[in-house]
C-alpha cells in the first residue's frame, strides 16, 4: 500500500511534473493569468492525463510490445492523446457548455501539452504496471493542477504589485516560477525514507 502512496506523493510534490521535471511549461505560463482558467485547465488536464496514461499503457503492452514496435511509441501516443483530447472536447461541449466555455481554447491546447506525452513515456521508463501508471498519471496531473493554481493566485496578486516596468508581465512570472521551483526542491527526499 505504501508503494502506491509513494508513487502519488512523489508525483504530486517531489517530482512535480512542472517545477521539477520542467514539463508542461507552456500552459503553466500561458493559462495562469486568472485563477478561474487555471482551475478549469487543471481539471481538464487531470482528466485527460489520467485517461491518456491508461490508454497508452494498454496500447504499449497489448499492441506495440507483442509486435516489437516499441520505436513507434511516441508516434502512437501522440495520435492517441490527440484523439482523446478531441473526444473529450466534443463530449464536454455537448454535455456541459458552461465548462466548455470556461476552458475555451485551452482544451485543445492540452494536445500539445508535453506533460501529457511525457508522463506515459516516464511510466514506461520506470517500468510501472497498469495501476502504478494510472496513479502516477493522476498524481502528476494533480501536481500540475496544484502548481498551476498556486501560480495563478500569485500572478493575480503580482498584477497589482509595484513591479519595475521592465520586469512586468512574463519577466516577473518567470522569476516567480523560478522561486516556486526552488521551493518545491524542499520536498526532495520525502519519498526516500525506508
Amino acid at each position, binding site marked *: 500500500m505504501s508503494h502506491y502512496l509513494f508513487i502519488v506523493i512523489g508525483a504530486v510534490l517531489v517530482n512535480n511534473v512542472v517545477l521539477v521535471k520542467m514539463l508542461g511549461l507552456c500552459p503553466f505560463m500561458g493559462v495562469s493569468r486568472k485563477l478561474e482558467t487555471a482551475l478549469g485547465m487543471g481539471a481538464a488536464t487531470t482528466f485527460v492525463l489520467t485517461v491518456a496514461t491508461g490508454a497508452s499503457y494498454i496500447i504499449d503492452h497489448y499492441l506495440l510490445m507483442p509486435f516489437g514496435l516499441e520505436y513507434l511509441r511516441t508516434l502512437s501516443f501522440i495520435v492517441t492523446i490527440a484523439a482523446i483530447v478531441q473526444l473529450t472536447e466534443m463530449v464536454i461541449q455537448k454535455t456541459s457548455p458552461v465548462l466548455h466555455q470556461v476552458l475555451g481554447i485551452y482544451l485543445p491546447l492540452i494536445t500539445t501539452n508535453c506533460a501529457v506525452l511525457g508522463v506515459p513515456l516516464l511510466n514506461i521508463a520506470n517500468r510501472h504496471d497498469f495501476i502504478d501508471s494510472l496513479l502516477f498519471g493522476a498524481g502528476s496531473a494533480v501536481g500540475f493542477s496544484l502548481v498551476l493554481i498556486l501560480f495563478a493566485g500569485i500572478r*493575480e*496578486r503580482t*498584477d*497589482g*504589485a*509595484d513591479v519595475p516596468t521592465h520586469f512586468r508581465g512574463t519577466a516577473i512570472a518567470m522569476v516567480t516560477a523560478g522561486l516556486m521551483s526552488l521551493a518545491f526542491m524542499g520536498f526532495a527526499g520525502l519519498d526516500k525514507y525506508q
Partner: protein
Amino acid sequence: MLQLFKFRGGVKPQTNKTPSLGEPIAVAPLPTRLIVPLHQSIGGTPDPLIAPGDRVLKGQRIGGADGWISSAVHAPTSGTVLAVEEHVAAHPSGLPTLSVIIEPDGRDEWIARTPVDYRSLAPESVREMLRDAGVVGLGGAVFPSHAKLTASKTVPMEELVINGAECEPFITCDDLLMRERADEVVRGIGIFRDLLRPQRVLIGIEDNKPEAVAAMKTAVQALGENFEVIAVPTRYPAGGAKQLIRVLTGKEVPAAKRSTDLGVQCFNVATAYTAWRAIAHGEPVISRIVTLTGNVERPRNWEVLIGTPLAEFVALGQPKPDTNGYLMGGPMMGFEMPSDAPLVKATNCIIAGSPTLFPPKAPEMPCIRCGECAKACPHELQPFELYWFARAKNFGKTQEYHIFDCIECGCCSYVCPSRIPLVQYFRFAKSEIWAREREKKAADTAKTRFEFRNFREEREKAEKAERLAKAAAAKAAEKKAEAKPAAEAAAGALADAPAAQAAAPTDAEAAKKAAIAAAMERARQQREAAQPKNTEALTPVQQRDIAEVDARRRQAGIETPGEPSGTADANAPAAPAAGSEEARP
C-alpha cells in the same frame, strides 16, 4: 434602560466641536445674490419653473420635482431671477450645474403659506407635500425624504431611528438645532412616526452632547410622546445610518440590502425639523443650519439661506489671514469646496482650513499590510485588499471584495500608518465601475437600436417589393380588362404572356415574383370582397361623424379623402408623421 450594541471598527478622532458651540444659532444676513442649483437631491434634476427676469417670492417653487425620486427647489428669498445658467456647484469636481441666480430685493416677502394639519390628510398627500417642499435628508446624503416614508408592504416597520449622533469632528449644527429647537424636531419626528407607524422610535445622540440629549428628553416629555432618547457612545462613525441602526437595535444591515428590509428606517434630526416646518408652517426648505468653524475668528452656527455664495458666508466668521481653503462637511468625509460655489442643502459645515489646522499630507508610503485599516473599518471590509486591487485597476476584484459596501467614512485612511489615501482609491474605483456600467448600458441600447433598424429596413424592403408587385399586378389586370371585350384579343393576350416571358428570359425571375404577387393580390381582393370593410360596420351616428370630418377637411383644403396623399414628399401633414417615425425607439 435599553441595551446598546456595538459596531465593529471605528475611530476616535479629536472632536474639535467646542469652538462653534459657544454661541447660539444666528440668522445670516441676506446675501447680495443667491445661486440656487436645481439639482440638490439624489434622483432626477428638477425642471426650472421660472425664466430670467421673473420676480420670485420667498418660498416660491423654482424647480419642480422630476419623478418620484426627486425633490423640489424653492427661491430662498424674494427678488428677481437674473439668470438660469450653469454655475459652479458645491461638488468635488468643481464642474458647473444648472442653477437659478436670484438677486434679492431685500423685502424677504413670503408667498402665501398654508399650514395644514397633516393628520387630516391622506399619507400620500403628506408625502407629496414633503416632496414639493423640497424636504431631503439633511445629514449629507440629500435623499428625498418622502421616498423613504412609505412603509414596506412585506416587512413590518419595527424601529424608526432618528439620527442625532453627529459623529464627524467640527460639526455642531445638529447639536445646536436639538438644543434650541428640540420641540419642533420632536414634532417632525411625530410626522414620520405617523406615516411609518413603527413599533418604537429611537433617537440616538452621541454622549458628548449632554445638553442636546437633555433638551430632546424634555421636549419628548413635554409633548407626551413615547420616543426613547438614547445617548450612544462617542465613536466615529456612529452617525452612519447603518452603524447607528446597529448600535440602537442590534440589527446589522447586510450587503446589498437596505435597512427597510429589516423593518428599520433612519432620518436625520434636521430632516425632521424641516418636515415639521414644511407641514405645519408651509415653509419649504430654503435655509439650513451650517456650522462655520476651523480657522476663523468667530466660529458659530448660522441659519443660512440655500444658495448663499461661499465667500459671503465665510466672511461672517472672519477667516484668519492664513486660511487657504474651505472644506464642506467634516474633515473625515468632506471635500475642498470650489471658492465660488454656493451653499446647498447638503452643506452641514464649512471648515476654514489652514496649513496648521490641516497640515499637508506626508507622501504616501507602501502598504505594509499591517491590517489596521481592516480593524478600523466599520463595515468589516478589508481595505488593504480593496486598495491593492483598486490601485491595480482590477475593478472586478474590488467588487468581489464588496467595494460598494464602503461608506467612504475615512476611518481606514485615518489609521493608515503609511498615510495611504485609501478612500480616494475607493472613490476612484467606484466611479470607474459606474462609468463602465453606463458605457455597457449605452452599448446595449445602441445594439438593440441597430438591430431594430436593420429589422425595419428589411421590413420596408419587403413592403416596397410587395407594393411594386401589386402595382405590376394591377397593370396586368387592367390589360386584361381592356382585352376582355374582344374575345380573340383575350386569346392573344394569353398567348402574349408566355411570349413576353420567353422574350425576356433575364426578367424571368421578376415576372415570377410579379405572378406570385398577382396571385396574392387576387386572394386579397377575394378576401376583401367576402368581408365587409370596417367602415361599413359602423353605426349611422359614427358614419355621420366621419362624413362631417371629411367635409371639414375638404373645406380646409387639406386633402380629399380617397385620393392618396403620400405622393408629395414635403406634404405638410405627412412630414410630422415621418419625423415621429424617425424618433421611434
